[in-house]
């Protein structure tokens, strides 16, 4: 009578990767809804396009690698990558940018490294950074102007479709412009803070509508925290670092972007709760996570303030991805029964 002999434990919790990823996807829904409300159907269309591209490219690569396709697709990681990328890209970005970014992030940033769990960089951000560098014009000027802020009529679904897929040149211009972060940075040199806020992008709104986007993502992030999908370390340290930097260095709203704009504009909340917390490419020790998050916050501020790009979450995350293994090596927690944590690299390690 041969019985099954497996190593203990013989029981499992209910955590599953697919479930975690599904929860993450669920937590983005408020943000997605707000963005759709503000920017029209473009967000929805691009997100759907990114998800489909992500799943497709993942399936193709898995097939080529002779991996079980459905088994891996069901872990929902490609879905989340596509979703996050769709949320990060400009709502009216031409379809090929979305497809290119997503396919690149899945194929090159994820599968080429060995698939799930093995990618050293956040795949979505790799794709985003690639198109940001390659197509700066489309990426920085194709940001839809909030219909709610500008008071324009929401572009119809078919119009949006043609703007995205046919790249109708004239039509999109009416709906696009620089983001509030971009605008503020460029105008504050010549104008006072009050004048800047009168600009069309803001039109009296605190952050030109972006405050609602960020609050929605903050809500989603809190949901993830509550569900213990993520820990507080990275988002909190990142937000605190960003806030401290902007308060200390940018206290003068007439010279620098104010803290409110930093915290509640651009991809701040999306980055803090959904992108920087990508476990695969982030630091894993508790202390390490705090350092990692703070690093992202500081980098975001530096690049936003003195860099050429209007937003900086992608670059900051990617830069900190580089440092994650190093941070981990030096932030091992003190284990039970040890007086001091063993830290650093063992001599002989490279």
């Amino acid at each position, binding site marked *: 009578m041969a019985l099954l002999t497996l*190593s203990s434990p013989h029981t499992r919790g209910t955590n*599953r990767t*697919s479930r975690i990823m599904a929860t993450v996807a669920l937590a983005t829904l408020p943000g997605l809804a707000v963005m759709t409300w503000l920017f029209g159907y473009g967000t929805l269309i691009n997100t759907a396009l990114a998800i489909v591209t992500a799943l497709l490219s993942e399936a193709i690569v898995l097939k080529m*690698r*002779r*991996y*079980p396709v*459905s*088994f*891996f697709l*069901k*872990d929902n990681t490609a879905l989340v990558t596509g979703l996050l990328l769709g949320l990060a890209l400009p709502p009216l970005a031409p379809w090929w940018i979305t497809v290119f970014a997503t396919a690149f992030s899945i194929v090159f940033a994820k599968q080429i490294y*060995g698939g799930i*769990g093995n990618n050293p960089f956040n795949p979505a951000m790799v794709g985003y950074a690639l198109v940001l560098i390659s197509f700066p014009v489309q990426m920085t000027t194709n940001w839809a102007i909030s219909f709610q802020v500008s008071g324009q009529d929401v572009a119809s679904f078919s119009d949006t479709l043609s703007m995205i897929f046919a790249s109708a040149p004239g039509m999109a211009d009416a709906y696009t412009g620089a983001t509030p972060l971009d605008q503020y940075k460029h105008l504050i040199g010549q104008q006072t803070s009050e004048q800047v806020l009168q600009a069309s992008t803001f039109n009296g709104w605190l952050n030109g509508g972006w405050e609602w986007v960020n609050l929605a993502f903050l809500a989603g992030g809190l949901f993830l925290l509550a569900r213990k999908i993520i820990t507080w370390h990275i988002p909190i340290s990142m937000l605190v670092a960003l806030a401290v930097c902007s308060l200390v260095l940018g206290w003068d709203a007439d010279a620098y972007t104010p803290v409110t704009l930093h915290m509640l504009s651009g991809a701040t909340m999306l980055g803090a709760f959904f992108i920087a917390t990508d476990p695969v490419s982030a630091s894993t020790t508790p202390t390490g996570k705090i350092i990692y998050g703070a690093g992202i916050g500081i980098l975001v501020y530096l690049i936003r303030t003195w860099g050429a790009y209007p937003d900086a979450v992608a670059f900051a995350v990617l830069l900190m991805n580089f440092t994650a293994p190093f941070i981990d090596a030096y932030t091992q927690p003190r284990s039970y029964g040890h007086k001091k944590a063993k830290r650093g690299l063992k001599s*002989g390690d490279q």
Partner: protein
Amino acid sequence: MSTILIAIIVLAVLAAVFGALLGFASVKFHVEGNPIVDQVNDLLPQTQCGQCGYPGCKPYAEAIADGDKINKCPPGGESTIQALADLLGVEPEPLDAEHGAEKDVPLVAVIREDECIGCTKCIQACPVDAILGSAKQMHTVIADECTGCDLCVEPCPVDCIDMVPVTTDKSNWYWQAPTSGVELIATDRRSVPAEGHA
């Protein structure tokens, strides 16, 4: 002229200062280095089997320190070669087949005692004195001391020594690494793993 002089003087002073510093450091932070032979010897498996062509591990360690190849130790196998390569900062080479192949399981010599004629030849051959017995008395191997070098097999006139794999018991058994699971796929492979039930 004076600039050149100044330059020379400055350089000389600098040289003297740094030289003194270096000299001081070399005395102050002098590390009692483990001689390379001992370090090499520590990496060798100490079976004293002589398969490398030297009469023991120490002589081979000395030879390595004198520039002999590091791939002559079959009992140590690839891991020893790797360790030696790391220590000496040379490229690891594949095991030299001339000296024998790496055994996949540790062996131990066992004397079939009813056949032993007590010739003491194996006792003389054993490099670690792991065989007990006296002339015309039955001999036996102290399994714990045996390094599995099989040097005793050849001299035995009645071929009563077997090299058997070391037995596994509760004290040295341990779990195999898990083999099932997608996460083990390091590179692309031919066979498609069974679909999971996730």
